């Protein structure tokens, strides 16, 4: 379970999050919607542990433990995972090498032995096939020369292999055509589980047609301003974010 309490964050001296409160229960799929600049991506980066974000106040608890002092790798070891809006290209690092390093880091953190290479290859190939990721893609350097859709599928592949307890999907739909969106959403839905929480961040209701959330939160000016069921997303699609921007300004 993820709990965020009164979180205040500044980036390069500019205040982005202003006392954000949020609770995502175990097994829940929560969506955060909000206009550009409302702080959605900042939220995902702060939870994942990016260094250049200054936390001024508040707490972020994962299963009751405050993780704000932890490194990104320590948070990942607790089962946190971030699907990047813009996955990084890493020239020179083979995708399989990277995946193996990530899986073995997780196993090490859990006190498990390294996965034998053969077993790892089997798992990675099986997971890749489900996401229409070709063997050729797995042979290339991490994300180098991948299309937007391929990069996102690779993110979901990593998520499938690392089996996180809590995943944040930061605008997974950006840069995806409808077919790629379906593939990725299917991949995510296959990972829905009673012991796994998902936080889906998006501008558009469209993504939520494919990944149905249990709850929807609306974010504006660095905090959650409204929460409701899936119908809230539909209402937003009809009216836009204008109400919320004004409400926050008032």
């Amino acid at each position: 379970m993820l709990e965020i309490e009164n979180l205040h964050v500044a980036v390069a001296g500019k205040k982005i999050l202003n006392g954000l409160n949020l609770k995502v229960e175990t097994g829940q799929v929560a969506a955060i919607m909000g206009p550009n600049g409302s702080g959605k991506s900042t939220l995902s980066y702060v939870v994942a542990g990016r260094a250049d974000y200054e936390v001024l106040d508040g707490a972020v608890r994962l299963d009751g433990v405050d993780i704000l002092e932890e490194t990104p790798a320590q948070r990942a070891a607790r089962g946190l995972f971030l699907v990047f809006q813009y996955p990084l290209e890493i020239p020179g690092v083979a995708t399989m090498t990277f995946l193996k390093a990530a899986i073995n880091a997780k196993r090490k953190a859990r006190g498990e032995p390294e996965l034998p290479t053969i077993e790892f290859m089997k798992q990675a190939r099986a997971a890749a096939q489900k996401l229409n990721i070709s063997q050729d893609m797995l042979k290339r350097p991490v994300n180098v020369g991948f299309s937007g859709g391929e990069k996102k599928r690779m993110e979901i592949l990593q998520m499938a292999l690392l089996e996180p307890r809590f995943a944040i999907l930061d605008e997974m739909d950006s840069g995806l055509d409808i077919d790629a969106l379906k593939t990725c959403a299917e991949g995510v839905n296959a990972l829905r589980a009673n012991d796994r929480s998902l936080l889906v961040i998006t501008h558009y209701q469209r993504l939520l047609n494919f990944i149905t959330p249990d709850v929807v939160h609306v974010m504006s000016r660095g905090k959650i301003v409204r929460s409701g069921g899936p119908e809230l997303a539909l209402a937003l699609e009809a009216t836009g974010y204008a109400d919320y921007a004004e409400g926050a300004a008032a």
Partner: protein
Amino acid sequence: MTALAPSQAEQDFERLLPADASPSARLFFDQFRQAGLPNRRVENWHYSDLKAKLRAALPLAGAPDPAALAVARQKLRRCERLRIVTVDGFFAPELSDDFSALAGVEIAPAGEGEFFGGAADPLVDLNAAFSRGGFLLDIFAGARVEQVIEIVALAGVETDRSRFGRNLIRLGAGARAEIMETRDEGFAGFGDSALFIELGEDSQLDHACRCRETAGVEVQSLNIMLAARAKLRSVSLLSQTPFLRRQYFVSLAGAGAQLHLAGAAILGRNDHADVTLVVRHDARDCWGRETFKYVLGDHANGVFQGKIVVPPHAQKTDGKMMCRGLLLSDDAALSAKPELEIFADDVACGHGAAVSKLDAQQLFYLETRGIPHIEAEKILIDAFVADVFDTLASEPLRDLLRADLTKILGEEKPA
């Protein structure tokens, strides 16, 4: 102009020259004496002030006695490769493999006073004056050596010594070979070695050099000559270099010769590694690529000086040189000085240099996948360095360098 008084080390060398030195040794020593130990006022030694660094000359290492051979033998592990072993710069047949069964290959001790020319450089001259007991490795015309030949340089019992290894590798026309050089003489002492590589027409050599520990002060000179259409791919991996100058003097002497030189230096502490190249395109239609990479942590200091010389007759020259640095600490430094001297009008020559830090975004991405910061750094450093090894066509050589890199980065996985 009055000459400066000789330094302590220069006087020491004069005293160390054996009474029975051959006339040619004396001639080379005279050349050295006239130039003296290079200091920072000598332009191509500006970043490596040898005179300041070498305060006194250490006693000469002698030919290895049984005790020295025993020490060296302990360092040798069993391996598949055919090995040529030197101890303190002396060829040690006792520790080397038997090459007699290998067709087209001959290894012989280099006789005293047997010199092979070399670049006009005071340290090459000093080496010529003092060196004894090197070897000649001949790979005769048309021979195709399938096995990797390894040259291992080790130290004996007394490590605080001056060593002057001097060896020749010669490939006849059309010959092919893969040679790994492993230099592990320890941190102590002074080293001034010279390696000569002569490639006959249409021959091909893949050469890799891993310097695991170099002496307190060390100069390595490579004198390389390529005949027409010969092809040399040579990659070095440098680490743990308290003060190293590795200088290449290359002549692309025959039309259509191809040179692929690359290297990586992974340095920390106060390590200093200076790679200086002089590549002369002495014939037309020659091709050269030089790529050197530096990973510098702590107070490490990297130097790259690369000079491409194209005389008027060397038309259709294609030469490109690149130096890249990765700085891991604010106290590390890289000095890069490329030079092009082009006198022909139909050539394509270029050079570039770039220095950067590890990419914070890439690090963060890896860390969010559970990879601890230090491991993430290693992955990115490995990625920065590893493509240098692709210069080699020989897979066994690439694998050996790769295994050493893994060891250097401390991953402790056996190769």
